C-alpha cells in the first residue's frame, strides 16, 4: 500500500543542516496496522508527514497504492490526500468555532458531496466512535478523549484507505487512551483500514501487527 524507497529528509536553515531521516526504505501492506516508535527527535513525525504527503523528501521515492507521487502538483496532491488519507493528531486540531458535526464533515467539503450526503456520512462516522449524542456541541465543551474521538470520526468520514495517527493517545489518560485504541483496532480489523501509528506507548504498540523503531533517522528494528 505504502512503499518508501531510500527516503532521506534534510532540514536546512541558514546555519545548520539537520538530517531528520537517512535512507529509510520500508513497505506497509494493505490492511496492516503499523506502529512506529523511538525517542524524541528521532524523526517519527517527519516519517509520518512524508507518508501523508504533507512534506516532500529531499531524496527518495514514495508510492501510495502503486501510484508515484513525485510529480503530482499541489492541487493533485490535495485531491489525493482527500480521497485516500485520514489524519489524527496528538493535539486533535479541531476547529473550536465549529460544532462537532461540522468538524467531522470537513474533509467532505473538499469533494463533490451534497449537503444531505455530508450530514449522513458525518453522523454515521460519529456513531462509529460512539459520540452521536454530542453532535451539536462545540469542541470546548468536550473532554480530551471525546475530542480525539471526534478527530477519529473526521479522519474516517471520507472512508480513506489509510489512516496516519501521530501519537493519538499522547494527551489522554490510560482509560481514554484505551478507548481510542479500541476504535482504531476495530477500524483496522473490521473495515480493513491500513493504519500507521506513531506512539510512545509500548503497551499500545504491542497490540498492533508490526512495530518499527527509529533512532536518529534510521530504522533499527
Amino acid at each position, binding site marked *: 500500500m505504502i512503499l518508501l524507497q531510500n527516503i532521506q529528509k534534510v532540514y536546512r536553515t541558514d546555519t545548520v543542516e539537520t538530517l531528520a531521516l537517512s535512507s529509510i526504505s520500508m513497505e506497509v501492506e494493505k490492511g496492516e496496522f503499523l506502529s512506529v516508535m523511538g525517542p524524541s527527535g528521532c524523526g517519527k*513525525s517527519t516519517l509520518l*508527514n512524508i507518508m*501523508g504527503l*504533507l*512534506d516532500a523528501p529531499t531524496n527518495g521515492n514514495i508510492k501510495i497504492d502503486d501510484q508515484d507521487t513525485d510529480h503530482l502538483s*499541489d*492541487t493533485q496532491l*490535495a*485531491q489525493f*490526500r*482527500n*480521497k485516500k488519507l485520514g*489524519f489524527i*493528531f496528538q*493535539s486533535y*486540531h479541531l*476547529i473550536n*468555532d*465549529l*460544532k462537532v458535526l*461540522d468538524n467531522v464533515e*470537513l*474533509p467532505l*467539503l*473538499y*469533494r463533490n458531496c451534497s*449537503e444531505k450526503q455530508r450530514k449522513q456520512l458525518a453522523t454515521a462516522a460519529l456513531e462509529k466512535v460512539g459520540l452521536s449524542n454530542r453532535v451539536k456541541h462545540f469542541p470546548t465543551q468536550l473532554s480530551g478523549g471525546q475530542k480525539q474521538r471526534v478527530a477519529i470520526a*473526521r479522519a474516517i468520514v*471520507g472512508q480513506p484507505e489509510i489512516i496516519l495517527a501521530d501519537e493519538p493517545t499522547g494527551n489522554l489518560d490510560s482509560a481514554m487512551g484505551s478507548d481510542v485504541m479500541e476504535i482504531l483496532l476495530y477500524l483496522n480489523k473490521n473495515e480493513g483500514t491500513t493504519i500507521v501509528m506513531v506512539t510512545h506507548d509500548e503497551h499500545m504498540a504491542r497490540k498492533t501487527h508490526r512495530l518499527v523503531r527509529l533512532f536518529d533517522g534510521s530504522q533499527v528494528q
Partner: protein
Amino acid sequence: MIKHLFKLIWNKKKQNFLLFTEMLVSFLVIFAVFTLLVYYYQNYKKPMGLAYDNVWVVDYNNAFQTENTDSLDQLYVTLAQNIRSLPQVEGISFTSDNIPFAQNQNTGGITYNNKRMDNINWYTVDDDYPEVLHMQLLEGRWFNKADAIAKDKPIVINSDLKEKIFGQDNALGKTIGDGDNKQKMKIIGVFQPIKIKGDFASTEAGLYSRTDTGSYRWLGKILLLVKPDADAAFEGGLYKLLANYMKNSNIEIEHLTNKRKNINYFTLVPMIVLLIVAGFLIVNVALGLFGVLWYNINQRRGEIGLRRAVGASGKSVSGQLVSESMILATFALFIGSFFAVQFPLLNVFDLPTSVYLTAILLSLVFIYLLVLLCSLYPGKQAAAIYPAVALHEE
C-alpha cells in the same frame, strides 16, 4: 461551502464584531462622499443654459436722480446707444441685480389654481437679455416691443418652473397670478434653465418679467457681450465712458467667467478638502483591515494546516479566507445599506433619489473592492503555509 463559511463567521461573531463595525462605518463615510460627488456630477452634466465667455457685467448705482421718468429713460437709452456703437461691443442688456453667478437673489411667489408657490427666482430683464447670454429657447418666444402694451403682463419662464407648476402639461399661453394673486401674467415663452449658482449646483425655477419705463430707476446691472479681442485697454476706455456719463455712480466691471470661477470655488474647495480627508480615512481603514486579516491568518495556522492535510488545495484555502472577508463585508454592507436607503426614502436634503441610489451602488462596489484587495495578500500567505510545520507548532 458557502454555508460552511457562514457558520464559521457567525460562530466567531464576537471577534469579528470590530471588523464588522469598521466596515460598516467606512461604508457610511464613503456613502456620504459619493452622494456629494454624484450630486455635483449630475449637476455638472446638466446644460449650462447660457454662454459665459465674453460676457462682461457692469455694476452701477445711484446714477441719475432725474424726477421725470421719460427723461430718465432717455438718458439710459442714449447710454445704451453709445455703448452699442463701440466696435468691440456685440450686445447689451439691462437687468436686475440677480444675474447668473451672483450672490444676489430675488425671490417671490406665484399663484396658480389658487395654490401659492414661493421661492421662485424673479428676474427683471430687457428684450436683449437672451441674446447677450445665448440662452436656449425651448418653446414660444422672448419679449419684444409690442409686449409693452399687452393686456396681461407677459412673462417668460424656465422649464424648471414649468414642471413645478404644470407638471407634464403645456404652459404656453396659460395665465398665472403673482404671489398675492392680484396681477395676472401670461406665459409667452419657456427657456432652458440657467445654472445660476455655478456648474455644480442644480438649476432653480425662474420667471422673467420685462422691464418697463419705470424700471431704469432701480436697475443696477448691465450685461455686455463683447468681441473675443476686447482687452484691458478697451475695458479701461469703457470704464471711463461709463464713469463720465454717470458721474454720481460707483462703477465696477467684472467678467462673467471670473464670477463663475469664484462661485465654483465655493463648491470645489470644500469638496477637495472632503476628498483628501476621506482618502486618508480609507487608507487608514485599508491598512487596518490588512493588518487584522494578516494577524488572523497567523492565529489560524493550525486550522489552515489541518485543512490542507484533509485535502484542501492552496488555492482553496486562500479562496476561503478571501471569501470569509467578503461575507463579513456583505453583512456590514447590508446593515449599512439599510441606513443609507433611509435617505432617499425620507427625501433628506431634497436630493433626487437617483443621486442616493447611485451613491449606494458606488459605495458598495468600492467597499467590496477594498476588502477584496486587503484580503488577497493575507490569503496568499495562508496558501503558503506548510501544513507539516503548522500542524506541529506548539
